[in-house]
């Protein structure tokens, strides 16, 4: 782990996110939830996930599933930094016929494992993928990022239960706990109470970390799963992290970055 390298990677992801959202113009983009997940995704793609441009279809690659698909700008940005996507691909975001829409579209060659964004489905896919690894005796790991709002979906809990029941010690669930969902605070819309205890009681080895502390993120992701046990990381994050205007301001869940705002926030990088 090289902290300055990680910081640099995260900064590039944030730069790509706001660049793409700015280019999207009036079409607007999901900004807050992409920025809250940016550090987690930065560490995953910088140091953890084994995937290469020339080997996106390699059977031994680690599998990454962005179940909270609306945070796709963070994923696309990371794939650009990994040279799997091109920077100019970002400029096609949400344009007619683009491969990069407001939610990921399956494109294994370009490093996108599944079409996600309909919430509550990604971890089920992850359980299937991790089960397949066991059956094929493959060493790859499956990383799934869930949103905290997403955890309102009952199907999330069906899949957490299954990950534990099937003793999947090759799956790592990361919850981007930014405490907001589309129309407000989790606590007001559907209170998740003690999320850590919930994952624990479903049988996951669960820890809670600061989801913007790259060292902590790295260590938690590097940590080996306990035998026969899925791992859950509750990453406490700030929605809109990195830009004062966006932080903890849910108006930036899905919004438009104007030229003047873009110019202003660039200074914060």
């Amino acid at each position, binding site marked *: 782990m090289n902290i300055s390298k990680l910081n640099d990677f995260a900064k590039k992801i944030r730069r790509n996110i706001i660049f793409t959202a700015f280019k999207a113009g009036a079409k607007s983009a999901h900004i807050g939830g992409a920025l809250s997940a940016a550090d987690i995704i930065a560490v995953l793609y910088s140091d953890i996930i084994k995937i290469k441009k020339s080997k996106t279809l390699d059977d031994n690659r680690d599998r990454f599933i962005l179940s909270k698909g609306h945070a796709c700008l963070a994923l696309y940005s990371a794939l650009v930094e990994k040279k799997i996507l091109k920077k100019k691909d970002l400029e096609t975001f949400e344009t007619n016929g683009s491969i990069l829409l407001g939610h990921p579209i*399956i494109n294994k060659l370009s490093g996108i*494992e*599944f*079409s996600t964004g*309909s919430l*509550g*489905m990604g*971890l*089920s*896919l*992850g*359980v*299937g*993928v*991790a*089960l*397949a*690894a066991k*059956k*094929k005796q493959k060493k790859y790991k499956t990383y799934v990022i869930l949103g905290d709002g997403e955890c309102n979906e*009952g*199907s999330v809990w*069906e*899949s957490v*239960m*299954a990950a534990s*029941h*099937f003793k999947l010690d090759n799956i790592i669930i990361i919850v981007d706990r930014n405490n907001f969902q589309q129309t407000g605070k989790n606590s007001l819309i559907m209170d998740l109470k003690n999320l850590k205890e919930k994952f624990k009681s479903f049988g996951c080895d669960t820890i809670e970390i600061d989801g913007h502390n790259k060292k902590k993120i790295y260590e938690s992701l590097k940590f080996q799963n306990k035998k026969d046990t899925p791992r859950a990381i509750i990453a406490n994050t700030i929605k809109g992290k990195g830009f004062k205007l966006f932080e903890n301001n849910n108006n930036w869940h899905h919004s438009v970055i104007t030229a003047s705002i873009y110019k202003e926030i660039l200074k914060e990088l």
Partner: protein
Amino acid sequence: MNVQNNIKLWSNLGMRASFGLIALELANVHSDLIITTSDVSTSAGLDRYKQKYPDRYIDVGIAEQNLIGISAGLSSEGFKVISTTFAPFQTLRCCEQIKVNLGYMKNKISMIGLASGLVLGTLGFTHCCIEDIGVLRSIPNIAIVVPSDPFELFKSLRESINYKDSVYIRLTAGINTKIINYKDYDFTIGKAVEIVPGEDVAILGCGNILGNCLQAANILKIKNINCSVTNMHTVKPIDEQKIKYLSKKNKIILTVEEHNVIGGLGSAVAEILSNHNNNSKLIRVGINDFYSSGGNYNYLQDIYGLSVEKIVNTVLINLKHEK
């Protein structure tokens, strides 16, 4: 495998137990086949399979949304997957998972909907399934096959594994299933089979209700009315050529199905007819968009006009109108 022996045995067992036996044969052929279920191993006749292939049997518990997600994940990693549970839960409970994982992303699996239609009528309409075809027909990249008997189930399941899209296989009727296909025949997904030739009225059916259609045709024959009976085992993609051909030859086309007349086989046939000039009149026999009081299979077939007598009467009444 001795087909003739199996036809008899399977029909005694019915679709569900036959499915279990067929699964054993397929697992023997395909070493990468996995069966996923939602706590229905016994209901699906899978107890022997489960014992013989414990590593290729995954029970996800009573969690059908997860059933489809896990199945799609396995499929995306190269496994051949057959998922199964009772028809309402195999289709409606996890409908959006089917849309996104199988339709939109094109992960490919075969889904077996157990005891669809009206056979579980004494359990009430929570367990009957008269909506599955209509709902799934509106999702792209999903084929829908309704086998007429267990022998056809064998053929459709075997073919579904190599078919380009996900396939929903809808099982109807209970034990002692009527035998529709006594001899071996060519089966292709999307190609209807004319079982009985005739020229006055064309009866098109899918599922084991075709047994009633065949009996009705026999009774009508005694009255000098020649009905053809066609097995529309695939509702999607529907056999357009066959429907066009039948509409040219017949004044009356009668569709018969254990499904809501909205969205099922009758609707699919109507959609084809509406695209072509033809002089035939379409009568759709099936569930007329209401949940009746519960009761056994015969009771419900009678209520919905699917009994042999009611099918005969419907043909006679409509022929009278034609004259």
